[in-house]
């Protein structure tokens, strides 16, 4: 699964870079307030874009590590095989829902194409596209889990 590893490394790198970008931009905002006559107005906008992309790419790691918050109440009372089947169904539904939301995020991105951010003047479609990215990545990493281990926890490709 070399392809998976490459995608995983890229997604992790993109998430970490976006987070570092956010930290740098907010740091500039703080430093500029003390060192310059006036703080730049673009920092808040740009830091928010970095933030939504760190979330969008970071969701891959969250799915990969099974960090999405959920209740495991019922699992304690069900047989191992039933839990396995439930997990498989759950993951398949998660993939389908992710794809549906990604599909409906496309018109949302198009709305952003005619909208400019107030200070930076960039098309908002760039920021709104993070909603497509987050769903595609969540769907892809869930699919990888299904392929690696249809119902059980643990093994990775």
């Amino acid at each position, binding site marked *: 699964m070399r392809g998976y590893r490459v995608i995983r490394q890229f997604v992790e790198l993109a998430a970490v870079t976006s987070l570092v970008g956010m930290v740098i931009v907010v740091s500039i905002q703080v430093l500029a307030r003390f060192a310059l006559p006036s703080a730049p107005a673009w920092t808040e906008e740009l*830091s928010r874009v970095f933030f939504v992309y760190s979330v969008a790419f970071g969701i891959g790691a969250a799915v990969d*590590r099974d960090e999405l918050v959920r209740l495991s109440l019922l699992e304690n009372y069900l047989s191992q095989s039933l839990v396995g089947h439930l997990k498989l169904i759950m993951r398949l539904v998660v993939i389908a829902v992710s794809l*549906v*939301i990604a599909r409906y995020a496309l018109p949302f991105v198009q709305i952003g194409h005619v909208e400019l951010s107030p200070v930076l003047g960039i098309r908002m479609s760039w920021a709104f596209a993070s909603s497509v990215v987050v769903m595609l990545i969540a769907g892809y990493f869930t699919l990888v889990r299904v392929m690696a281990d249809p119902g059980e926890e643990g093994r990775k490709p």
Partner: protein
Amino acid sequence: MIGLLFLVFFVLLLMGFPIAYALAISCISYLLMADVSLVVVPLKMYGGMDAFVLLSIPGFILAGNIMSASGMTDRIVDFSNKIVGHIRGGLSLANIGASMIFAGISGTAVADSASLGSILIPAMKKEGYDADFACAVTSSSSTIGPIIPPSMPMIIVGSLTGLSIGKLFLAGALPGLLLAIGYMLVSYMISLKKQHPISSRASLRAMGKSFVGAFWSLVMTLLILFGIIGGVFTPTEASVVAVLYAVLIGSLVYRSLRWRQLLDVLKNTVSTTSSLMLLVGFANLFGWILIIEEVPQALAGGLMEVTSNKWLLLILINLVLLIVGTFMETLAALLILFPILLQVATSVGVDPIQFAVLAVLNLIIGLNTPPVGVCLFVVSSIGKVPVDRVARAGLPFLLVSLVVLLMVTFVPFISLWLPGLFMD
């Protein structure tokens, strides 16, 4: 149709779906039935995440993770032990003290129980404490984390309601202190009864040396708190200043932070933040549906029909939140329930800041109770003790939490005094 929304949500929740997806799917079912375009799903999801104040969440998580990676946890434990180690059951008191200090750099209970527990539970067992008690003290004291600033639940409350995060942080400080004092008293009494070990008193020189080690984490808490209260930083800026501070201390003062470690810390931070933000995004959609269906008004009306007495209503809300907290994750429960219940509480004259502390306190109590007490699970796996035994040993501490909850409910001064003193 609102019935369908709740039905789908609860069925999926029980089936074990990620809560974010249980919210999304229930909302999609509702929107399809109501013939509303599904474009609203990404729109509201994005809207929920795109708030400047939420940027403080990865900031504080990152700062806490960097401090932990720099070996701050050992220094905090050492300092707390030097101060109270000579008292009967001193290590358990040190455990609670360390939790209080650690709360100032982490803001989450699970991080607290995992990092302090991995050091203190084996140390307590080695010194002769029974494992059940060691786990129960660690698990209970870790709930101080989400109350003492910086607090993730308070940031979420601020982003949901527009309440001042500085005020919310301050409001949690005194209840957090009361929890710690209560836990220490109970711990001391149990230690007297069980004749837990006692360490020799540390010399002033050793105490001073240990203080220097832990000093920098205390400075970080003060930097965050007074930076926000003093109006020097916004919460997001304060969180980033905390990150820069943690990097400087870890690399230049402690000289223990490695670049390789930093990469792992960054990966952990984006993973934790993303799972939380997906929840925030879909909870925003869920909340929007509840508002257009006028659910908060209906619930407020329903509860007011039961009683319009402020105190009885607060007891009723406490019961609801305590029950929810026993099976639902703190932040998820806050995102779904807080805006609705706030409307009910304010309609009978409860201060929103007091109500925020009350709600957070209620929900964090559930971190230490079965069936879904996350902190219980963490410490039981560290201490190799069955969850039910830890829960039983934690009953006296649970009683303390309930007493503090009642105090916060009936004495608004406890949560409103510090915000009034510094920010009004």
